[in-house]
């Protein structure tokens, strides 16, 4: 087939969110890929001029529809650091529990979409069925399925009773059991390996130079995870980053699959080590100064640059989401791949376009 331009997206069933890729294709081999963004740009950073820093928590939560809790946590941590607020220990553990629950459901969602990208519909259904359990946990403990809104500056708004903790542990046992049933399918199945091994290779050097983040970086063998920073209660939890060496779609899938299981373990650790006590500190005053704060989102590192001027309105909030960093690596991965592999590669960076454009 001669050289053709295939418009991929912004509305394409395999893409969960709107990104447009202009693919120059020859004999079903991609020669060149150009992105076009801007289909869901909302300018949330700008809202800091008319919403005070407490209201901004609910606004930054809406940057991403999957890992909202982690955005709010990152923002709160930044403001707390700026104002010198000491967060109670229990609140730190609660933050870890909910943020790891968000990671589990985000990864399960991704694993489903990824399976769908290479045409494995039944696996997609299985993963989403498991994910529903996590949604139920969120809804029962924090009041909403995804946008849990539990963070406030100084701690959390909701607490977990011992019964709820036990219930979460029970449900997580089921989640772990069901996820493990799919381990062989995702990691050893002939057709799955055929579609992912050696597809969209990003070498360690490329990943580092192009600024890849999160599982995309760890899938290329770089052991970098913001949870190594020991933010929230991660200083009291045993944690080591998951990596895979090959830098192909299979490696990235493997990292995410193993991280799902690891996060189940992290929630268990957090619940077992959580102390009693207050869940929020009272504070006075307004943030002043500037700082950069980073946490690990399911998709990779999340960076907030905050600048306060002593009023209740922050001067500047700059959000760098992981997908934004992972688009240049995606452009490096696409040329040379087959048209059939484009959805697999595009999904392997776990694109969250709403995050990217904010």
């Amino acid at each position: 087939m001669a050289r053709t331009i295939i418009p991929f997206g912004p509305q394409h069933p395999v893409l969960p969110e709107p990104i447009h890729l202009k693919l120059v294709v020859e004999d079903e081999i991609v020669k060149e890929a150009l992105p076009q963004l801007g289909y869901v740009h909302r300018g949330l950073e700008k809202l800091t001029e008319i919403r005070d820093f407490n209201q901004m928590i609910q606004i930054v939560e809406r940057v991403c529809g999957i890992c909202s809790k982690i955005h709010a946590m990152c923002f709160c941590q930044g403001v707390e650091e700026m104002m010198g607020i000491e967060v109670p220990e229990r609140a730190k553990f609660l933050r870890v529990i909910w943020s790891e629950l968000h990671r589990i459901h985000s990864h399960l969602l991704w694993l489903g979409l990824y399976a769908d990208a290479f045409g494995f519909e039944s696996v997609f259904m299985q993963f989403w069925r498991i994910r529903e359990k996590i949604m139920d946990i969120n809804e029962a403990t924090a009041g909403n399925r995804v946008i849990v809104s539990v963070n406030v500056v100084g701690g959390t708004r909701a607490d977990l009773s011992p019964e709820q903790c036990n219930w979460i542990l029970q449900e997580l046992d089921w989640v772990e059991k069901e996820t493990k049933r799919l381990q062989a399918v995702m990691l050893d199945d002939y057709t799955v390996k055929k579609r992912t091994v050696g597809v969209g290779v990003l070498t360690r050097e490329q990943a580092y130079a192009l600024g890849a983040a999160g599982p995309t970086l760890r899938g290329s063998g770089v052991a970098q995870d913001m949870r190594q920073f020991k933010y929230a209660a991660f200083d009291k939890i045993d944690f080591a980053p998951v990596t895979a060496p090959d830098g192909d779609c299979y490696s990235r899938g493997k990292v995410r699959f193993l991280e799902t299981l690891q996060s189940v373990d992290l929630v268990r650790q957090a619940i077992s080590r959580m102390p009693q006590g207050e869940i929020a500190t009272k504070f006075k005053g307004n943030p002043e100064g500037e700082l950069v704060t980073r946490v690990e989102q399911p998709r990779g590192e999340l960076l907030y640059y905050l600048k306060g001027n002593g009023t209740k309105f922050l001067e500047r909030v700059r959000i760098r989401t992981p997908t934004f960093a992972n688009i240049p690596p995606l452009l490096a991965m696409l040329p040379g791949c087959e048209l059939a592999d484009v959805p697999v590669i595009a999904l392997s960076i776990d694109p969250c376009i709403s995050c990217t454009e904010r």
Partner: protein
Amino acid sequence: MAFMTGNVLRNLMGKYSTRLYPIEIRPAFEAYRGELYNEIEKCIFCQSCARKCPSQCISIDKEAGLWTCDPFACVYCGICVEACPVNCLHMKSTHRHVATEREMIEQKGTPPKPKKKAADGEAAAPAAEKKAKK
């Protein structure tokens, strides 16, 4: 090779994971933040909720005693419920029902009168309450 076989055959024999939704409805979780409502007779129209709201969806007319929430702007965060000094705001544990046209949550109450006029205000209160229940 085909590791999925066990899983699909188990599903074939096992229970359904989905629900026939409108026929079978899962009971709501107690903590779920659903539709917002105001116990208008307790409301003192202090405007704390409107000020704290991140999406600025609540508007209050103190003179007329009108409390309005735009459910299409509301983000169901529950900040207003916590901010309320007299605990008159609540969230139901079910979500708002499907509507065919855009309608606001509007509740009419009696704003607290200055102390000396309190006697006049009491007479008007029952009538206002009836309206609110509609």
